[in-house]
């Protein structure tokens, strides 16, 4: 009986550990695409906030800048958005962290709190951006055993997703698109240095592939008026 009790205790502990977050994540590592209102495609100029990174047990060096670079390249080159960078300031970082924290607990249809919305709208307006993009990373380095227990616990409650993103309308500060993934190549035991460049790129592709392409500039009204 003792091994069974131990296994049950481990399962319960893993389930409780996973209960601490409200982040909605796909159970099987594939993309989940929650609600989008008017779509992200018309938001051609996207302001990309600094990546929010909660290392947890993963001490991967340069994780945030590597994610940031991969995401910006993919969203720009394969989704067609013009990328705008915000000023490097404490206010921008606070906004990114605030939105990431809100997003982890938010359900479909929720709106960010009014103070966050007004900060977001002001930032987008000052930068001349149509929308704001957030990328939140919280990788799991529990090892294969830990991940197995977390997966078992996922039967009871949803585990946290290592990568989550959200796009907000720059005029109203409302959420228009979000996605969360468990990158397939991050499931195996990773080296201390973190995912390889290829694994990083594949993870970003998984995260952003379901995103609508930007409405092409040649089809925009301004282009037609020329």
């Amino acid at each position, binding site marked *: 009986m003792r091994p069974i009790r131990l296994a049950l205790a481990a399962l319960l502990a893993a389930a409780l550990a996973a209960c601490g977050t409200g982040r909605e994540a796909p159970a099987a590592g594939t993309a989940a695409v929650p609600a989008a209102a008017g779509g992200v495609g018309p938001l051609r100029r996207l302001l990309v906030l600094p990546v929010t990174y909660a290392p947890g047990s993963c001490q991967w060096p340069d994780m945030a800048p590597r994610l940031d670079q991969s995401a910006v390249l993919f969203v*720009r080159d394969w989704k067609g958005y013009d990328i705008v960078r915000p000023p490097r300031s404490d206010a921008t970082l606070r906004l990114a962290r605030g939105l990431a924290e809100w997003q982890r607990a938010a359900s479909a249809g929720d709106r960010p709190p009014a103070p966050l919305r007004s900060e977001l709208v002001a930032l987008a307006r000052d930068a001349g951006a149509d929308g704001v993009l957030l990328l939140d990373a919280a990788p799991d380095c529990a090892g294969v055993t830990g991940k197995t227990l977390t997966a078992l616990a996922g039967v009871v409650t949803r585990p946290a997703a290592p990568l989550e993103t959200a796009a907000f309308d720059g005029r109203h500060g409302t959420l228009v698109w979000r996605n969360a993934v468990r990158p397939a190549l991050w499931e195996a035991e990773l080296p201390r240095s973190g995912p390889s460049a290829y694994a990083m790129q594949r993870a970003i592709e998984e995260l952003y592939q379901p995103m609508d392409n930007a409405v092409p500039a*040649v089809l925009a009204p301004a282009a037609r008026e020329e």
Partner: protein
Amino acid sequence: MSSPPPSPIAAAGAALLAGVLLAGCGSTPESGTPAGYQPRDPASEIERVPVRRLERSPELPALPVSVAVRAAAGPDLGPVDRSREKMVEEKRTLEGAGAIATALAAAAPPLYAGTIALGSLLVPAATGLELYERRYQNTIVRTLQEVDLPSQLRSALVRRAAPAGGEGPPANVTVTIRTFGLAPRSGTCANCAICVVVDAELTVSHEGTELLRDPLLLTPWRRSTDAPPPRCATMKEFAENDGQRLREAILDTAQVLAAMTTRRLPAVAWTE
């Protein structure tokens, strides 16, 4: 098909008219930075191909237009719609599917190694496409054949062409679709993204003089600077709902090609 040689008077008139037009309509590289164009980034591996424009002097009227879309292979385009009294010339060049494959292989082997070309053959064993389920393949091929890009593009251009006003001979705008189909974005695997790709050429001639010849490139790794990224999805996503996503992607691509064409030709009379 050959036409009789022009008379000396007609030839002189044509040369004079062409000279005037060439003085007013300069084929120039696009000036400034078009909306949406991202400057070359060393981190990006995508090649951006500059585009040219056919400019018009403000004092000269825009040229009336005759539109033609040529496809290397494809179904009959049907009769021309003259309900708006537009001057539309329809030209078709029918070539075998094998010719497409040969031309593509010679042009850019890495890009087209896994390409499914319109009207062409699907070669699973040679391209790694055997990874995809047969039912997806069937839906994809059927959709590519049903939603005919050349005829969609021709319709989009006809809609944008200004009605002929009897102001002399039209500029002949011809888009030749060298290839159209699906190509892998990076790797070939069951869950890897494949993209709708088009490699076309835009030519404009007037009175027998070629005024502009420029590529229209919407391929994964080589694109015109005014081209958006190609529409990509997995084979399964493109095939779902009877190919709805692929259908929409092809229709969008036709609109994009038409817009790229009209934006490059301010010297020609368009309605939008």
